């Protein structure tokens, strides 16, 4: 009997320490692969100084919470400009870890807090291993937090260049971005296969210079939080909207609040929006203040006149109860939104999604088939869409019935196994 394929997954943070889409997807994959007898999977997740209690004197890579095959990479001395670690002992520990685990596949889900040069170190340590890299954002292309949103005017950016990046980050000259691009690409040379969760991302990276024959599309999969028991009440009016996510600028909560004001101003008030999420402290000062001021004014209204309710943060296990309170899920992101796990989560509960018409949202949602799209960042467009959602007979049912089940974690694992083993991809025969 063939020995199991040894897979090492490398993650930015552990989702139980820091919540985030990339680490959630990586952990879903880890859990799916762990259930397979033909795969021997190990997880190495980074931790940083925000979790000092996890750092042990003299240790650089440790176990995690007594969980088998789960380890922490205790990041330190991280250079956020060049995305590398200059701590020699940590790198030596990583090399030792690789030599101990001896994986056949090393699958990176990020390089932040790990170092982009870890790819080259991995290649030198394990010349025969297949290295896979999954892009979860545009950090390799975009020095502005990987968002590809122009800081000059908040518009979506489709192409990086020395001058354009300098306009967003004027403290760095164009030459810096030129060098950064070369630096990133040099280390990506060690990668055998790239994957992206959406196809539009492939376009961005191919335009940047990635060989299209080396990129595969593997949608993000998740466990079904509804457990197949999505509760859909019979209601005549579908006027309850929900936002699920972080209250940071690029998630676009402010677009919802502006849309609410527009609807109220036009006399349409028969709706409610429930805000589910936290991390408002990570929003910019103006956005945070605007949100707090809005909620303060909302609180002063009589309860019957309130249109926006703040439910606070939630855990995935609470999704069922939160989703049951809404008819629609709004995803008003003002950035590309690579995949939008919240879209999958809404679909698990048969909730049509109203989303911005860009990026992963536009790719996943088919307007008037399984959801509705509005112009990105346009509060009036959202307001009109919300009013339509509330008032158009049969619309909600039509869209709910058009929802296809989102990818499961098992489907994602199957697809990644194909990537791990594929000889069919053009590059593998080179």
């Amino acid at each position, binding site marked *: 009997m063939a020995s199991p394929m040894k897979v090492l997954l490398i993650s930015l943070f552990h989702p139980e320490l820091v919540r985030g889409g990339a680490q959630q997807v990586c952990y879903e994959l880890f859990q799916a692969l762990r259930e397979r007898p033909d795969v021997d999977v190990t997880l190495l997740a980074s931790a940083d100084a925000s979790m000092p209690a996890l750092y042990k004197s003299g240790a650089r890579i440790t176990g995690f919470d007594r969980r088998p095959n789960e380890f922490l990479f205790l990041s330190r001395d991280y*250079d956020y*400009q*060049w995305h*590398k670690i*200059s*701590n*020699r002992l940590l*790198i*030596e520990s990583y*090399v030792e870890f690789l030599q101990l685990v001896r994986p056949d596949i090393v699958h990176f889900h990020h390089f932040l807090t790990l170092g982009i*040069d870890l790819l*080259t*170190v991995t290649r*030198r340590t394990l010349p025969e291993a297949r290295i896979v890299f999954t892009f979860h954002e545009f950090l390799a292309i975009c020095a502005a937090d990987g968002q590809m949103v122009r800081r000059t005017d908040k518009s979506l950016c489709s192409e990086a*260049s*020395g001058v354009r990046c300098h306009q967003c980050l004027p403290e760095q*000259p*164009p*030459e*810096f971005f*030129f*060098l950064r*691009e*070369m*630096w990133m*690409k*040099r*280390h*990506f*040379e*060690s990668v*055998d296969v790239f994957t992206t969760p959406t196809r539009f991302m492939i376009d961005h990276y191919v335009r940047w*210079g*990635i*060989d299209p*024959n*080396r990129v595969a599309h593997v949608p993000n999969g998740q466990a079904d939080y509804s457990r197949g028991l999505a509760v859909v009440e019979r209601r005549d009016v579908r006027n309850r909207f929900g936002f699920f996510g972080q209250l940071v600028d690029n998630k676009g909560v402010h677009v919802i609040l502006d849309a609410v004001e527009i609807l109220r101003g036009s006399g349409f008030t028969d709706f409610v929006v429930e805000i589910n999420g936290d991390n408002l402290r990570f929003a910019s000062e103006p956005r945070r203040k605007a949100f707090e001021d809005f909620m303060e004014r909302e609180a002063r209204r009589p309860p019957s006149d309130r249109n926006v309710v703040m439910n606070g943060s939630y855990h995935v296990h609470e999704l069922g109860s939160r989703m049951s309170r809404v008819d629609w899920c709004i995803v008003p992101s003002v950035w590309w939104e690579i995949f939008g796990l919240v879209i999958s989560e809404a679909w698990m509960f048969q909730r049509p999604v109203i989303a911005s018409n860009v990026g992963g949202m536009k790719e996943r949602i088919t307007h008037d088939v399984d959801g509705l799209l509005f112009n990105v960042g346009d509060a009036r467009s959202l307001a009109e869409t919300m009013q339509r959602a509330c008032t158009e007979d049969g619309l909600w049912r039509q869209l709910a019935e058009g929802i296809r089940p989102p990818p499961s974690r098992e489907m994602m694992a199957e697809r990644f196994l194909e990537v791990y083993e594929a000889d069919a991809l053009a*590059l593998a025969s*080179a």
Partner: protein
Amino acid sequence: MSERKIPKILKETEIRRILIRSGAKMDDVRADGTAARPEEEPTAVHVSPPESVRAEPAAAATPHVVPRHTIENIAIADRGGVFIAGWINDSVEELAELRIDAGAWQVTFPAESLARSGRDDVQAALAIPRRHAFGFWSLAADTRVSGPATSCSCEVVMKSGAVERHQVPLQILFDQIELRNLALTYLASSQYLGNPMLDSVACLDKFIGRQIVDLNLLISNALTGRPHVERFLSHRRSSRGSIVVCLYGRPEYMFLQCALFSGRAGIEDYEFVYVSNSPELAEPLLQEARLCAMTYGVNLTLVLLPGNAGFGAANNAAVAVSQSGRTLIVNPDVFPLDQDWAARHSTLVETLPAEQTAIFGAPLYYDDGSLMHGGMYFDGDAAISVERSLFRTNLTLRVEHFGKGAPASAHQFLASRPVPAVTGAFISCDRAWFEKLGGFSEEFVLGHYEDADLCLKSIHQGTAPWMHNIKLWHLEGKGSSRRQAIHEGASIVNRWLFNRRWAAPVAENMLGQRPTHPLLQAQPEPAATEQPAPRPAFKQPRKVAQPKPPRVDTRPRRRKMVGEPLAAGRKEFVF
């Protein structure tokens, strides 16, 4: 040289005599400070200007009053020299000299040895409408300036015979470097009444220039005398070339270059030698060097200097510890554009005639894709200034790049051909030829003109530098820390020194883009019609490496093989 007796008020037997003479040798003075010719009466030593500007003091007459003045600063560095600065209203009566007596040593500055500058504050305070260079400063470099004195007497002597003495506290500077930098700062920031370029050169020409150069040599010799050297080896293969890089203030360029140079065809035949002029970066550089060897599989030698020895001296120190017969001087902000540049470089060196590869440069490109350097040539600027109703002119050489800013497709700048000079951002040089030329001149202060100077030395000795078409990126000016006044002052000194040395021979037959020097007349070979990639290219997918047959290098070697015990202070690590 005219000498003067020490005034009787000073203790002759206690005085250590310092002889500072333009062009004089230290051999003229014994170790105990007495003159080499015992029959001569020991004398106070003074700075002696050239004959043409020396003036005999006026005959003593009725005592005159020394005009208003202030000695603002007398600073010394132990075994470095003395600096003086102040102002004087000698607009009517002429200053003769300044005498400093610190007990254990004396220095006399004749008026001609002082740099003069405008002082708006003095002009306003004295309410004198006619512009006059009230300010003065000067420097005398000598290792015998030392001792415990914390103050000195300073005599201001006018040509009329008037003398006024002051007791002045001595500013004890930290070291020779601070003394040099003080002079460079004054040089850069002085308010010259005429053409700044001419006036600054004039003050250097008389006396101060040589002092700064001598002091700088003292400094760089001390800094490069005992470097800390560590080697980080990934393999035991011998090197066909040594990539020598001088770092200053920007440590990240070491790992960036190791990353971007490594993994390319032919690079396995090259070693990297990094020399650091920034001692504060020693620890992080040592960490990074080890990481680079581990990550990129390169052989890397790190030479740490205890201070900024300047571009020339630092590179010479690095070349001295390199282990191949070919030296490549590379700026930290230079990166390969042709991905197979190393293999192409090796092929060039092996196949072309020796005179075409003894010293050569390469086309360098800006990040925007345009050409940054296609070789260098010399041009001349005639500067003009007015002084005492007379025009004064001077020809100053300027170094320019062929094709700077030209489109990448400008093939005339890519052709293999001899050129007057190539930029130090990339110079490939036969190691023996580099050493025969004496390496980079260490007289230039901090950095600038060493590359042109090296190329002119090569032409002078019968071999012109060439250009060959292996393209690299050069992010010009991004490889070092921001310039300060001392760098501006150093530029002035270097420009003066370079012109003093080369203006006449260059003006003869090496000026312009088409010089007539016989060594520069070879017909250029047409360049290939390829254009550089508009943006960084992605390397082709990794292929399974086929084992290469071992290569036997039968060339005679000057240097010993890797593996021999290193000298004390040098360490070697093998991965």
